[in-house]
């Protein structure tokens, strides 16, 4: 069953075409990797789906309902949650309070929201820090807190923007494990990632963007062997994505 359908999505900023006619679809519970060199338009595409940007052209449908151009709070209410590339936790709140703000989308009562938040913290392995000020967490923990906060909104689709950037190899392993457990709950994920050892074993399918266009789509192995993908990475002075 198709959960998300993106058709001919274009987003311009003045003369710059950040995303140029990109189409893809995503099934319920599927993990889609979104990769590409810097400036490929990954985050722009991501922000269009999350409602942060209104698309210039094209359609975004969530279970058939058009969500392109809706404000982020409406998109969130319809079941799309996200994290941010640069963490945006609520620094003056405690860890559990951060997650409660997410839980309150479905449950306005304080006690009930706190119960959901504590469950979600246990799921993400942050339960021991529940009462601590969120600003005291390490970067890896802050990224996990953003995931917990997003999960507490009970999404159908979770958008993860570089949750593995800057993590140690063992932390990347934990993050991969967490995303797998999220999918096991039936939540589909779009994972924007530069960390190839994180995304390659995780994604069911990978979509490669370069300069706003889709240049490849397929299984991680097929994408890694694709000459156009290798060209895009090496052409930018980067390295080919390896599994």
């Amino acid at each position, binding site marked *: 069953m198709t959960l998300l359908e993106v058709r001919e999505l274009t987003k311009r900023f003045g003369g710059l075409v950040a995303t140029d006619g990109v189409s893809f679809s995503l099934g319920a519970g599927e993990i889609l990797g979104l990769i590409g060199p810097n400036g490929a338009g990954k985050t722009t595409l991501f922000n269009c789906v999350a409602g942060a940007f209104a698309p210039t052209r094209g359609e975004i449908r969530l279970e058939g309902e058009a969500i392109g151009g809706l404000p*982020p*709070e409406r998109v969130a209410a319809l079941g799309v949650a*996200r994290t941010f590339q640069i963490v*945006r*936790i*609520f*620094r003056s*709140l405690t860890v559990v*309070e951060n997650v409660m703000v*997410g839980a309150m989308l479905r449950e306005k009562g304080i006690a009930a929201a706190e119960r959901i938040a504590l469950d979600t913290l246990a799921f993400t392995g942050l339960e021991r820090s529940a009462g601590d000020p969120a600003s005291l967490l390490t970067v890896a923990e802050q990224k996990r807190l953003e995931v917990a906060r997003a999960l507490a909104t009970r999404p159908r689709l979770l958008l993860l923007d570089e949750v593995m950037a800057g993590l140690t190899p063992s932390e990347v392993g934990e993050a991969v494990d967490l995303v797998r457990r999220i999918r096991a709950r039936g939540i589909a994920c779009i994972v924007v990632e530069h960390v190839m050892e994180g995304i390659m074993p995780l994604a069911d399918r990978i979509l490669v963007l370069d300069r706003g266009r889709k240049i490849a789509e397929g299984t991680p192995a097929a994408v890694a062997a694709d000459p156009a993908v290798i060209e895009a990475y090496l052409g930018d002075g980067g390295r080919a994505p390896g599994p």
Partner: protein
Amino acid sequence: MSRLPSRRRLLAIAAAAVVASLLPLVVKAPAAQNTAILMLMTAQLGVAWNLLGGYAGQVSLGHAAFFGCGAYVSTFLLLRLGLSPWLGMAAGAVAAAALSMVIGWPCFRLRGHYFAMATIAVGEIVQAVVANWDALGGAVGLYLPVAEAGWRGLVWNTTKLPYYYVALGLLVLTLLVSAAVVRSHVGYYLRAIKDEPDAARSLGVSLTRYKLVAIALSSALTAAGGTLYAQKELYIDPGSVLPTALSIKVALVAILGGVSTLSGPIVGAVVLTAIEEGSRRAFGGTGRGTDLVIYGLLIIAVAVFRPAGILGILERRRHLAARGEEPRPAPAAGGQGT
């Protein structure tokens, strides 16, 4: 948020209530009583401002417009229709809430300093409009009738003491409303909006809706304080109830005391009012502005050394004591308060 254990906290609140209600029976000098009334009225305005400026982080420098709205609406209705000031207070609060939402709708599109600047402009505009509005007495102002003294008319002539209890009641009401908001999901949302508005939106929080809730409540409570002022002074004009200096003072009270606590503005109000009255007594007419100089120095000191305000300093000491650490020197300017 204060993290005192709830029993100790209840005891502290009960003790504060007893001291506050018995204070005028001990302190009988009219001048001292008047200072105490000013402290309560200033504290009430600071607590009301704090809902919007502190918890939601939308720094308003135009709250005098709402204060004046309360004073003018109740006074106008009293003079024209003979309406009881109690009903006038409610009418003023409703009018201020409506005015605030009209102002908030466009101004909330602005973030940070731009919002604060827009509220200064709104305050100035309201002041200019009222100063040229004949039905409201223009620049001359309005005199309230010296009616029969008593609770019904909210007027007393020979003693100021009842005003003390009205101000105390209004402060308690404002604290109760604020506490109810802060403990509800609205309070969590306001703090989230203050910290990271985009993240709050991504979690389904409508920024406009919750900022409007905050400004409506904050301005309604501020207007109630305006009505009390009019009933106490029995004379209002744009210079006394609408000046930008008043807007700034209300914000200072909250910022000095500590913006992320319910009781911070009370501490700020006591300190600022004491400075104001003290310098007035010490320097008289020649020292005009001395209190403002001291305010300014205090604000600089708070901004540089302790962005969390006076209560933030105490809170931090308690935290450190609980962990068995010595308080360390303040972080450098611009450091994040935790």
